């Protein structure tokens, strides 16, 4: 073949047949084909091949294909429908959308605002109590430096250098008497004969009762903080916790710094005669267990004692047992024991006494010694002569001696309490009589009880679920909203990846 010299490429001829050429080029070729036998032959061949290829026909697509595709088509649109509806809902009714959002906000606000308020009140109250505590401590330090309590809160305020009228012990806010929604009122007690302030009271009450705080608080030089929901707390109000012991030792420091005579009045009333720690134990058998128990309680109260510990145990068809530790004022122990004995059949009784006079005298002496040492050290410190190192040394020593005297003081107090209150261990056993008519609860009442139980637990559950929803709902909703779109995107992406 003479392809190379031919004016028309055979490939162009094919492209012409396929309709892939521009109109100009197509005309050119059409004209050429008319004149060129060689090209006409090739065109014929191309047409023949196409016709031959058309002989390979495939059977029509099976109808099952239609069913499967249209089922998928239905499924797809069904899946889309709710979404489209939701979109329409929000698109068409902005008023609805607005009110839905408003309702949501309202619910969240209704849940969170009271909580917020409550927590603010609680934190204000806690702050007031801690302010009172630090004021107590600060007053004691003031007293140990200047020999008396301050005359006003302002005297505790910032000052440089510290002086009697600006001791630099509290911040300016507290010194002005108001902090975190509470107003602090400091009143010095009447001056002593020597013109010193030896007592004080501080009250803290909410600036805005019910909003910035609920309770009002009271404290004095004893260190006990009392609280009241009334307008103003005073010395009669209920103490808020065990603060006293710690503060008492502070008070001991103050007393020590003022001199041993002051301490002598307050501390350790002299115990006349020998000091004896008395203990007794009593085992009783009684038929009327309940009335016996009540009687024990009454006796303890009558004699001004208290329960150290009380324990009742027992099983269904067996006698019950009560064990208790009673603390009865020592001088009335005999009478109390006599009354207790009368409560039932005595199975066992013991009494003993341990003399601790020597121990007490020893403690008192050591305590006095420690305090004297402390006093001397304080005097050394107050003169403030010597090197810084020496001053620090003295302060360390004061701290040590102070700690020791506190320990001795606590020991002495405990011993005195043991002497003042005798210990009685009592054990009461019920004289068990088997009951003949042990009537099991009737079926009706059992069913009724079950129904009541069921109702209770259903209500409990409902309340629990509601509580959870209200408590965790808003945050769940928030996180749900945050994570919904990314999760949906990811899900679609994964599905697309698996489909492809």
């Amino acid at each position: 073949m003479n392809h190379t010299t031919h004016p028309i490429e055979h490939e162009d001829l094919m492209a012409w047949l396929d309709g892939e050429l521009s109109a100009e080029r197509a005309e050119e070729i059409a004209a050429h084909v008319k004149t060129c036998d060689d090209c006409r032959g090739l065109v014929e061949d191309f047409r023949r091949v196409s016709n031959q290829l058309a002989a390979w026909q495939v059977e029509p697509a099976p109808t099952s294909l239609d069913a499967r595709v249209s089922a998928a088509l239905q499924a797809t649109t069904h899946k889309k429908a709710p979404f489209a509806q939701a979109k329409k809902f929000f698109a068409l009714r902005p008023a609805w959308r607005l009110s839905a959002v408003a309702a949501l906000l309202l619910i969240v606000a209704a849940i969170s605002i009271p909580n917020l308020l409550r927590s603010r009140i609680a934190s204000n109250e806690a702050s007031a109590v801690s302010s009172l505590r630090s004021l107590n401590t600060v007053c004691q330090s003031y007293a140990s430096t200047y020999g008396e309590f301050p005359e006003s809160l302002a005297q505790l305020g910032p000052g440089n250098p510290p002086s009697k009228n600006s001791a630099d012990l509290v911040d300016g806010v507290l010194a002005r008497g108001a902090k975190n929604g509470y107003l602090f009122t400091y009143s010095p007690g009447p001056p002593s004969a020597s013109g010193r302030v030896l007592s004080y009271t501080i009250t803290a009450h909410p600036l805005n009762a019910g909003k910035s705080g609920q309770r009002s608080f009271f404290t004095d030089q004893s260190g006990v903080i009392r609280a009241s929901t009334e307008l103003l707390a005073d010395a009669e109000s209920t103490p808020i916790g065990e603060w006293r012991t710690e503060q008492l030792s502070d008070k001991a420091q103050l007393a020590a710094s003022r001199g041993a005579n002051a301490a002598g009045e307050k501390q350790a009333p002299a115990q006349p005669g020998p000091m004896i720690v008395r203990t007794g134990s009593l085992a009783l058998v009684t038929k009327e267990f309940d009335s016996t128990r009540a009687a024990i309680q009454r006796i303890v109260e009558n004699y001004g004692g208290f329960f150290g510990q009380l324990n009742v145990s027992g099983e269904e068809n067996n006698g019950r047992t009560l064990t208790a530790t009673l603390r009865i004022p020592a001088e009335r122990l005999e009478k109390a024991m006599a009354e207790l004995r009368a409560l039932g059949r005595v199975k066992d009784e013991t009494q003993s006494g341990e003399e601790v006079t020597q121990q007490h005298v020893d403690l008192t002496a050591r305590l006095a010694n420690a305090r004297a040492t402390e006093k001397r050290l304080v005097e050394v410190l107050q003169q403030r002569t010597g090197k810084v190192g020496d001053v620090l040394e003295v302060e360390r020593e004061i701290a040590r001696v102070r700690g020791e005297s506190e320990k001795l003081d606590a020991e002495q107090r405990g011993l005195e309490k043991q002497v003042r209150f005798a210990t009685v261990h009592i054990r009461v056993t019920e004289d068990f009589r088997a009951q003949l008519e042990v009537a099991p609860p009737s079926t009706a009442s059992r069913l009724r009880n079950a129904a009541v139980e069921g109702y209770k637990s259903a209500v409990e559950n409902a309340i629990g679920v509601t509580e959870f929803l209200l408590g965790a709902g808003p945050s769940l909703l928030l996180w749900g909203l945050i994570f919904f779109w990314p999760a949906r995107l990811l899900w679609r992406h994964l599905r697309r990846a698996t489909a492809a």
Partner: protein
Amino acid sequence: MPALRDMTTDEQLVEDFQRGSRDAFAELFRRYREKMYGFFRRRTENPARAEELAQETFLAALKAAPRFEPRALVRTWLFGIAMNLLRADRRKVGQAFQLASLPLDKASATDCDAASALWVREALAQLDEDHREVLLLREYEQLSYAEIAALLALPVNTVRSRLFRARMALRELLAPRSPSLGTHDRAVM
């Protein structure tokens, strides 16, 4: 309605479907069901597989339709999906390209049709695979050079030259005189 439908372009149908018209996709399916089935039927061994792949093509299209953008022709897009599925299927089965066995048992095919079809099939089987695919897409799927080029990721010139070579080869393979089957009178027509 059907007349109106016939005048609608494929692209318009996809757009309608995106707006929520199920009928639009059904129409698209009606237009392409034979083409798709034929595409797979000529390229796979068994009719069930061909039907399955055709179905998968439409399902994939159904899923992807909301994201279809009218930058390409729907026809090219659909054959693109079909081509991807075919490639994935071949990779999975691990078989080389094989022309479909012809359903000789089909009642619709007359003996003479069947014989010439078998002749054509054998001739195609002798072609180079690259050449054959281009030829099949041109002859049976009636795609333009540009569409074939896009589908196979080839330059248009390569498509053209491969097509030319395939046709020249077939010219020899299907020459009227060579077969002993005696049915080429039809083929010459």
